[in-house]
């Protein structure tokens, strides 16, 4: 079963179109939604959450999104929007009455694990602390699917690494799935099973991360030799006076080329620049 299924998602704004996006997230997997700022990641997530009107079909845990279904989903947005004067105890009291399956002990456990003070006002929290509180809330009602929109943006590497560890822990259960968007590709590379590239509102590709890393390689060559290759083989290139570096499809080039492995970040940057 798919935890998330998106078919032909289209959303028009003034000057931006999210163009016929389709992808799915198998249950038990982590899918990273990568794209530059303004690529359409947040629009996709807001559509999934039902915050926007859109064309297309979205199924979450096999059903169209509804308020009730959100009891089974944990959501973390780029900004955790609790009112300034609330503290952790207040948040606990609110969420206890908000979610039908709120796990008080799990929440307090996360608060302790994250080292969050329970009597300090939310306004006095650092950005990392606010994000950790948002994650604690998302993880404390036995969610089957986590949807995270830029959870690591603006955080220092140490906190980002901590958050990635927490998310890795969450997917130890085979029924747990994660959709995470970020423009910090290195974070997603550590975490994801599947990668979806969004660029200027279009889905460039959606594939298994390991398959992508296997399929695409770097070659160093000249413009002339590159021009001789099948045009579908070249996903992106960077030319300088010392030669041309290109990312190519391993299957579509002769074996004679010396190849180097790519990272997801390389692939994303080269593909986005090529467009």
């Amino acid at each position, binding site marked *: 079963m798919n935890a998330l299924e998106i078919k032909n998602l289209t959303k028009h704004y003034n000057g931006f179109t999210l163009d016929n996006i389709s992808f799915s997230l198998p249950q038990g997997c982590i899918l990273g939604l990568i794209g530059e700022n303004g690529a359409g990641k947040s629009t996709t997530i807001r559509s999934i959450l039902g915050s926007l009107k859109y064309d297309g079909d979205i199924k979450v845990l096999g059903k169209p999104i509804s308020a009730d279904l*959100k009891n089974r989903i944990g959501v973390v947005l780029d*900004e955790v929007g609790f*009112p300034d004067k609330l503290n952790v105890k207040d948040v606990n009291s609110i969420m206890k009455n*908000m*979610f039908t399956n709120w796990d008080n002990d799990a929440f307090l456990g996360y608060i302790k694990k994250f080292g969050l003070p329970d009597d300090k006002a939310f306004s006095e929290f650092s950005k990392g602390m606010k994000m950790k509180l948002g994650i604690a*809330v998302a993880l404390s009602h036995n969610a089957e699917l986590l949807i995270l929109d830029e959870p690591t943006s603006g955080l220092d590497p140490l906190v980002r690494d901590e958050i990635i560890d927490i998310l890795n822990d969450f997917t130890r259960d085979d029924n747990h799935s994660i959709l995470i968007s970020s423009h910090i590709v290195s974070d997603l590379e550590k975490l994801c099973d599947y990668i979806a590239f969004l660029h200027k509102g279009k889905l460039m590709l959606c594939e298994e991360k390991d398959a992508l890393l296997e399929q695409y390689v770097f070659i160093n060559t000249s413009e002339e030799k590159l021009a001789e290759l099948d045009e579908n083989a070249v996903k992106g290139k960077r030319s300088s006076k010392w030669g041309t570096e290109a990312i190519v499809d391993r299957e579509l080039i002769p074996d004679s080329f010396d190849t180097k492995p790519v990272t997801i970040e390389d692939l994303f940057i080269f593909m986005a620049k090529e467009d």
Partner: protein
Amino acid sequence: MMKGLLTKEFIVFLKTSRTQIYIILMFIILGIMMKNIMYIMFVPLLLPMMAKQGLAVDEISKWDKYSACFPVDRKKIVSSKYLLIFFISIAAFIITAISIVILKNFKPDPENPIGRIAPYLAAAVAESLILPSLSLPLRFQIRHIKG
């Protein structure tokens, strides 16, 4: 769930309106001490108006956007605001009524029995309910357009 939204509204109300609540308490004490009912009549007018501050708090904290994370729809979010004002109005009515009874015990006034004051109190409570009922839809509409 509505219970969660109402819990949030009440906590935010109590935490953001602490100073105003003290001022209202002062009005009640002044009314009783000075034996003047007009001070007490401010309570049903001011308390429900204070409850509207929650909208500004939501806007500043971006709770509107964040509430998409929870199992509540927009209808419930809007309803919770009206319910808060309704409950606060009821509380204001009870507080005012008790204060008037105390005042009447301090200063028996045979020319103005409680029966004669009751319509004024009812009018003040009605106004406290009607004013937000008229202004809140406008406020929500503006926020909806801005959003």
